[in-house]
């Protein structure tokens, strides 16, 4: 094959993917970052303003208060996922991977089911269930003698974010479960047999043999949780609208970005500031991914069997 023909061949195979991906993914990403250094004037032209959008965002109280509020809430949202979703996922995966377990596939399929459904549908369903109007949640708690605990969780500033986070945990627990389950299945039986011969029971074998071996997967699960959480929007928008109320108590980066960019009852849409917030989200996510790639992943030993 001549060199020209070879290059032509490469171009034909690669061009469609590279063009679509560059146009609709990389270019918008770069253009958004670029936009964040400009200020859109009333006559439609843009003025280069350097980092001033960012200084406004981080220091002008009308911008910085909502920004830090959203950032703090987003960190909490992430922490709740790390402390509740991933441990539950780990326990479920550990139980599912036990040898000679009946109904394994059935449990796995059913527990993964909520993960498949649209966040909008899940959010609304839970809103109905938790609604004092329907009273199903209260009825359910009363059955266990816990009826007094029930409150308008979604409507109160102190509990709205926690409630929404737990609903998100409930929906997405399937992802850490499946990823960890796979990693556990990849561990050869001989290792566990050797451990049991040495006198360890199933629980000890899990803690001392399996857990260290799946650390790379736990790292991956953490970074995936991080990226997804700092990119979240749908659930809070579906349950609380763009204002993420009451009093912005459930506002996270995604909803703040949407509100600033599109405008809402309280303010007009602002392209430049919207881009600045998106760029901040990009930097946050990038930091998380970098920490994972260069700090966590580097230090981990990978075992191949």
């Amino acid at each position, binding site marked *: 094959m001549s060199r020209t023909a070879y290059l032509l061949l490469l171009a034909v195979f690669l061009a469609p993917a590279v063009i679509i991906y560059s146009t609709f993914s990389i270019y918008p990403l770069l253009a958004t970052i670029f936009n964040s250094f400009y200020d859109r004037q009333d006559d439609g032209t843009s003025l280069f303003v350097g980092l001033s959008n960012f200084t406004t965002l981080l220091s002008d109280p009308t911008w910085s208060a909502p920004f830090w509020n959203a950032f703090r809430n987003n960190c909490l949202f992430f922490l709740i996922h790390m402390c509740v979703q991933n441990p539950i996922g780990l326990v479920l995966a550990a139980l599912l991977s036990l040898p000679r377990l009946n109904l394994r596939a059935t449990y796995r399929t059913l527990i993964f089911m909520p993960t498949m459904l649209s966040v909008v549908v899940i959010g609304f369903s839970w809103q109905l269930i938790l609604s004092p109007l329907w009273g199903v949640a209260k009825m359910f708690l009363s059955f266990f003698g816990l009826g007094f605990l029930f409150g308008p969780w979604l409507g109160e500033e102190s509990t709205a974010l926690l409630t929404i986070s737990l609903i998100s945990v409930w929906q997405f627990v399937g992802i850490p479960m499946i990823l960890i389950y796979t990693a556990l299945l990849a561990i050869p039986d001989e290792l566990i047999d050797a451990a049991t011969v040495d006198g360890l029971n199933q629980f000890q074998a899990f803690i001392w043999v399996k857990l260290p071996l799946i650390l790379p*997967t736990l790292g991956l699960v953490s970074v995936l949780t991080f990226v997804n959480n700092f990119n979240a929007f749908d659930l809070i928008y579906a349950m609380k609208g763009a204002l993420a109320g009451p009093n912005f108590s459930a506002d996270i980066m995604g909803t703040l970005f949407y509100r600033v960019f599109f405008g809402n009852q309280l303010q007009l849409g602002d392209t430049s500031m919207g881009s600045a917030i998106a760029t901040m989200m990009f930097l946050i996510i990038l930091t998380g991914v970098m920490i994972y790639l260069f700090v966590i992943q580097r230090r981990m030993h990978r075992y191949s069997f």
Partner: protein
Amino acid sequence: MRKPASAIAVHAILGLYTVLALFPIVLVVMNSFKAKRAIFNTPLQPPMPWNFDPIGYAKVFGDSAITSYYLNSLVVTTGTIFMTLLFGAMAAWALTEYKFRWNTLLALYLSIGIMVPIRLGSVAIIQLVSDLNMINTLSALVLVYTAQSLPLSIFILSEFIAQIPKDLREAGRCDGLTEFHIFFYIVLPLIRPAMATVAVFTMIPVWNDLWFPLLLAPTNGKQTITLGVQQFLGQYITDWNAVLAALSTAIIPVLILYVIFSRQLIRGLTSGAVK
């Protein structure tokens, strides 16, 4: 497990969690078939002849364009799957089979999208789509979703293409087949299982997405089912029959597909995960 007591404990935990995972879904679907009084008075009772009432469904399919929203979602999802699979497989093949100078760099460039969500570029995506006069079109959604799905699918398909024995392609070349024939008649059929996995992976986030339909095609009957249901819920917030029916119409098709494809999906997740 040797000891029956611990086996019972394990089944108790898994069983309880399964109930917790299914309860909200079952509750919504069950009550969507019931009369209003029964929804409020006996929410935990399954639909029975005496409390059965499909009024909610009559409203959903009568008052709104739900059927055409389904069609929109179907068009967008199938279009995205088709483009992602074809272009993704072509790129994966070129990257794994041919050696050229920018190979590694290009592979790296294409994998940025695995970690960085395309949503962050939304401001510019809207400008781009409106410059192209494609606001409120399904094609805009297909293009954006294809761009979003390509990185992961190229990554997964490359892994599979690399496993195809070299002899097979060389045999094709000896028989005088062109590179295109080798790709379409030898490689594509061999990676069919991987393509099924990628199709499922692509389908779920696209079908369920709210963000891009909200930004790019929010009106004019171009809504996808997820956005359509969301808007319908906003209007009928106090009509519980209609709300429950609308939620169920969004849940049921996904559940049916899930039951059919769950094996494929789990297998896909379990093979791509350890990498």
